[in-house]
């Protein structure tokens, strides 16, 4: 990029950043397949009442599976308390995308499962690495997100869900 253009470009971005209307990150609406073969618009999964959680994961990602297996043990309680819905979005590509349904069913996850093999949804949300977890409020706005997973992170997520359920 030529020296003159770079500041111009950055100035445009700064101008954009300073406008109030631009701050909220709303959930991108992308058409993906679920593991039953249905086409789902991501926006239709956002609950009108109660929080919605989107967890990006892959069958080859150990921390992702730890995260979702840990949430699975708490999911029923969380649903009762906060009305949350968890959507697990797999970024497995063609090498492993067919492993998603057998794996998910074998471990008995009760989440909505979406397949994002081309990473359209992940890219639209700025996901670089998995696991990456987003909490979306009833207006479809991302209110919390967390990259990586360590045991115990579910406490922080739980607190966020309780705040939204109030």
């Amino acid at each position, binding site marked *: 990029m030529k020296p003159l253009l770079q500041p111009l470009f950055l100035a445009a971005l700064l101008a954009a950043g300073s406008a109030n209307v631009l701050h909220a990150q709303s959930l991108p609406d992308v058409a993906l397949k679920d593991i039953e073969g249905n086409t789902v618009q991501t926006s239709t999964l956002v609950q009108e009442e109660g929080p919605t959680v989107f967890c990006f994961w892959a069958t*080859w990602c150990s921390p992702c599976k730890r995260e979702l297996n840990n949430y699975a043990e708490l999911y029923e309680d969380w649903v009762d308390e906060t009305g949350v819905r968890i959507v697990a979005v797999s970024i497995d590509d063609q*090498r492993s995308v*067919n492993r998603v349904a*057998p794996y998910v*069913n074998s471990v008995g996850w009760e989440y909505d499962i979406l397949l994002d093999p081309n990473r359209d949804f992940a890219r639209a*949300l700025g996901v670089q690495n998995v696991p990456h977890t987003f909490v979306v409020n009833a207006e479809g706005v991302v209110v919390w997100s967390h990259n990586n997973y360590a*045991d*115990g992170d579910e406490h*922080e997520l739980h607190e966020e869900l309780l705040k939204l359920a109030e």
Partner: protein
Amino acid sequence: MSLWASNRRVAGRPARAWVFAVAGAIAWGVAGGHTAFGQTDTPVPSITGNVSILWQSYAEHTLIGAQVPPSKTGYNAFANLLYNQGNFSAGVRYESYLNAVLGFPGRFKGSGIGYRFARYQDRDRGVDVTVGNFYDQFGSGLVLRAYEERNLGIDNALDGFRLVLTPLQGAEVKFLYGKQRFDFQDGLVNGPGVIRAVNGELDLNQLVAGWADRPLKLTLGGSFVSKFQPGSSFNVDSLVLGMPQNVGAWSYRLNVLRKGWIGQVEYAGKINDPSADNGFTYRNGEAALATLGYSQKGLGVLVTAKMVDNMSFRSDRDLRLFDLPVNYIPAVTQQHTYNLAATLYPYATVITGETSASAEVFYTLPKGSKLGGKYGTKLSASFAAANSLDTTRYASSDVNSVIYGYERTSWGPGSELFVRDFNFTASRKFTKEFKAKYAFFHFEFNTLTTPVTTDYKGIVDANIHVLETQWKVTPKQSLRTELQGLWVGEDKDHPGELQDKGHWATVVAEYTWSPHWFASVIDQYNFGNNDPAKRIHYLYGSAGYIQGPHRLSVGYGKRREGIFCVGGVCRAVPASNGFEVAFTSSF
């Protein structure tokens, strides 16, 4: 759209008009946003994105072969900015390689824009147009897949036009034209070939009246992809062979789903495409794959079979490995995650030809059962195998040996073993605080056809045992450890010596303090190397801080020469020794 039309590129370099276009679009969005106050039907604009910075310093270590590049440090950074307003979106990625970290293509140089696009989607009317860069995949990618694996420097994004039309609910047609990303020199540099493609997909459950709620889900698809690259005829002995400048490839596929069952078949073909990969021969290409899966609560089974014959398809016929692939043929083996299983002998499809099959079972012993224990026990086992094709070479006196090389005799496997991969895992939560997992792997790996090592030519037999434990020290603090050992067989050509680099052990300890802190140590020890001087510890420590979507980590130590994999792709990384600082953020 006149702004975009001015983007005529010269010699594959991005035109500056892009910068104006995106900045203008954003400025327009801001202005639009201000004037839109009070008008509830104007969509709210938003900007999102991410940043990644990776810095490494290098110190010499002759024993492990770690060298210091002239720049002494490596620095890779990128930031994506995505602008969204209603049906309109646009984005850019600014990238820096000053200089590229070791293991990345060394030819990536400088800073600039490596990706930019604008997109308009009118979902109600079934129109979706993208100009600039985009990633896409037809079916399972046998004839077209443009994708990125940023952590490995792999990116074959298309740069051109894409039009997606949905004339009827459940019927989609995609047209695209473009060149592919090849290099980075202060900005995007595309390869020489032009890709033209069309893909159609029919979702019969949406398309056929009354099928929407049927349990049987049927999807049909078909693609045609053509590449154009100028070329001139060449001589082999006394033959003058013309170079096909236009090469077409096609695929058909059928997906079936029904109550826990998945079935998938795809067939792909390609006309003659002389290339560096196939030794400039004129055989047509062919690939077929089939998948069958079944799952219910507690059980999952998946079986696949695949045949790939001469399906290397690139937008530059002279390139190899990771450069300018148009299609993608995934490996039959799983992407393993444990250090020794993942990085020493990772298999990659032999795209010139292989026959392969795999089977995998997942099973959960139920909670509270005698064998399952209080929390249940998860089991999995898988087996994957790949061999050469069943072929006959033409006699060297036959002119066909120069033109076609070989003839395939059947769809079945040939006699040469490429890989065998058997593995088994069992994981169990014993108490609220303690979990453990055991994994076993057996590999037979042909290092001649998948050259992951220069130390051994032949079939490596390796057995790997892994024990992973996790102990929850407090509700927010946890210690995870891995003990791994890899034992190889004897080198038959050198009795008394071990195959390749011999035996390995890896120890990993990771302490996390949710939600912010983590620290980890990994030691890879080549205790069984035939050369006692090379029985080295590769010790690497790192620590970091996470704040929501932001992550900073600092590491120091030795990184082994080996194969670094992310997702389904792997790249060879040289040995190095030194510091690493990494920052990632999304917003």
